[in-house]
């Protein structure tokens, strides 16, 4: 467990963030410039805040009051950077060994061979970083950080430079890593959808302070209500893969099924589905002859507005939040307990492994 309280006050930037991360995966998100990377740098020890404290597993690694500052090399915190930051002059094997060799034998809890196996790197060990694809680099970066048996695992936008397919596969590896080794993970991202499928907690940061710290979906709602901090609200639904055709895959969620773009998944696989609240059209009566593949019937449970945006929570089996404008709401004559139809394209749905 890690608890921290960090303050920085510089011209044009003030940062005041405190919290506590336990065993699970904590997502830290917020717009760029919010202070996400500052938080990671302070925890890792590459940046020294003006005042505050950091405690990892009962050990004080920073306390401005007691004048304690443990240097980064003594913290045993594993960090994965956006583009991997692999050492270009060392082979994959020597990259992974680099930190492992420096950990005192009695503190080594993870076996590099096991890590290499788990991340599917066995065939890449003799390669140089320049010979790796983006996804492979990130896997090596994860392995390298794990090899020091970290007390805390920090991920700084680890998927930002990858395409969608590779993102999914790295997320899977991260999930495996977390299930296997139970190391507290802090996952920094500006993309909300990326994080929801693995995080148990989420922290929303903006302008150097914490706006919320909660379950990811609850926090996403706060973020949506807050307006500017997150670009859109995502509905997060858990489901199971159903039938697939060449173009489409069906996902079963509670009593409903929705169409998504074709997924390379087998029927029965568990997935997490993300659907933007602003990607959904609300209609008072059943539309016909639409190109959109998804039309769901439901009943409005609640309507609220915030920062000029209106949100409607619709019960279609699961509950889905739809974003619309004030004028649309009035013209359509929709109110609480109205029967409505939700319409969205199969391409608006993102699917992640659960």
């Amino acid at each position: 467990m890690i608890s921290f309280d960090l303050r920085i006050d510089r011209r044009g930037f003030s940062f005041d963030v405190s919290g506590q991360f336990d065993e699970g995966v904590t997502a830290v998100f917020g717009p760029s410039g919010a202070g996400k990377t500052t938080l990671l740098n302070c925890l890792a020890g590459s940046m020294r805040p003006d005042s505050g404290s950091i405690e990892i597993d009962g050990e004080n690694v920073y306390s401005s009051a007691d004048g304690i500052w443990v240097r980064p090399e003594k913290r045993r915190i594993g960090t994965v950077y956006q583009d991997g930051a692999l050492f270009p002059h060392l082979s994959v094997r020597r990259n992974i060994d680099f930190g492992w060799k420096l950990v005192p034998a009695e503190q080594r809890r993870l076996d590099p061979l096991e890590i290499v196996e788990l991340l599917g790197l066995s065939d890449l060990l003799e390669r140089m970083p320049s010979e790796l694809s983006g996804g492979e680099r990130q896997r090596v970066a994860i392995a390298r950080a794990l090899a020091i048996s970290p007390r805390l695992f920090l991920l700084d936008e680890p998927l930002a430079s990858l395409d969608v397919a590779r993102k999914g596969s790295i997320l899977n590896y991260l999930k495996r890593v977390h299930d296997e080794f139970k190391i507290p993970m802090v996952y920094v991202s500006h993309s909300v959808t990326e994080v929801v499928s693995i995080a148990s907690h989420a922290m929303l940061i903006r302008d150097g302070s914490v706006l919320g710290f909660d379950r990811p979906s609850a926090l996403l709602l706060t973020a949506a209500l807050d307006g500017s901090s997150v670009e859109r609200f995502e509905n997060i639904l858990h489901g199971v893969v159903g039938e697939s055709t060449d173009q489409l895959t069906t996902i079963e969620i509670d009593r409903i099924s929705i169409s998504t773009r074709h997924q390379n998944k087998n029927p029965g696989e568990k997935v997490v589905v993300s659907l933007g609240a602003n990607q959904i059209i609300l209609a008072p009566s059943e539309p016909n002859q639409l190109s959109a593949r998804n039309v769901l019937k439901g009943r409005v449970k609640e309507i609220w507005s915030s920062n000029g945006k209106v949100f409607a929570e619709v019960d279609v089996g699961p509950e889905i939040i739809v974003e619309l404008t004030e004028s649309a709401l009035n013209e359509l004559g929709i109110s609480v307990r109205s029967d409505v139809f939700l319409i969205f394209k199969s391409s608006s749905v993102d699917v992640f492994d659960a």
Partner: protein
Amino acid sequence: MSSDASIIVLSFQIALVATGVTLPVGMLIAWLLARKQFHGKFALDVFVSLPLALPPVVVGYALLWLVGTHSWFGSLGESVFGSTLAFTWIAAALAAAVVSLPLVVRSFTAALAGVDPRLEVAARGLGSGSFRTFFTITLPLAYRGVIAGALLGFVRALSEFGATIVVAGNIPGRTQTIPAAIFTRISAGDSDAAWRLTIVSILLGVMALATHNWLLKLSSTVSRDSSEVG
């Protein structure tokens, strides 16, 4: 008159010792300039570069004062070596070191600046102290630029004349380097002998600069290759 061979050997000895001094000192200063923020950084930069902007004679005169018995450095040298350092080959090496230091520092700073500091941050996070990080990450990634810089410093030390002649004199067999010998031979009207050493100087300079440029070209293509993949 000393033989060409003995003059060349003495010149190499002086230039090698000078490079032996500028290599660690220059690396430390370059590392401070490239990686650290501190008060007096600007002043350090100016002070180290000063010999580039001064007439070498002035540098030599300042060094003569420094190694003279009335400064603490001079008295330290005297107590170690038993006599004043002025007009010894050690003074010649010192002059060559001071004059070549700005070139070495500049080359090293450029070489270090070519290494992504995030790799050092990553290494620190993996448990490597700053000393180990420098020798296992920074230096291996910057070594071509470092060798090129050391080479440049070495040829500058070999060709040093103005400061050397003031602080070390032009004593055949003791402090007479290639440039000083050429000067003596020209003054004596012995142009054949002067030309022999002149040609040696030109050959050494061309070889060193060619190697220097080749190394720098190599290191810039290497870093471009790796950035393209990334």
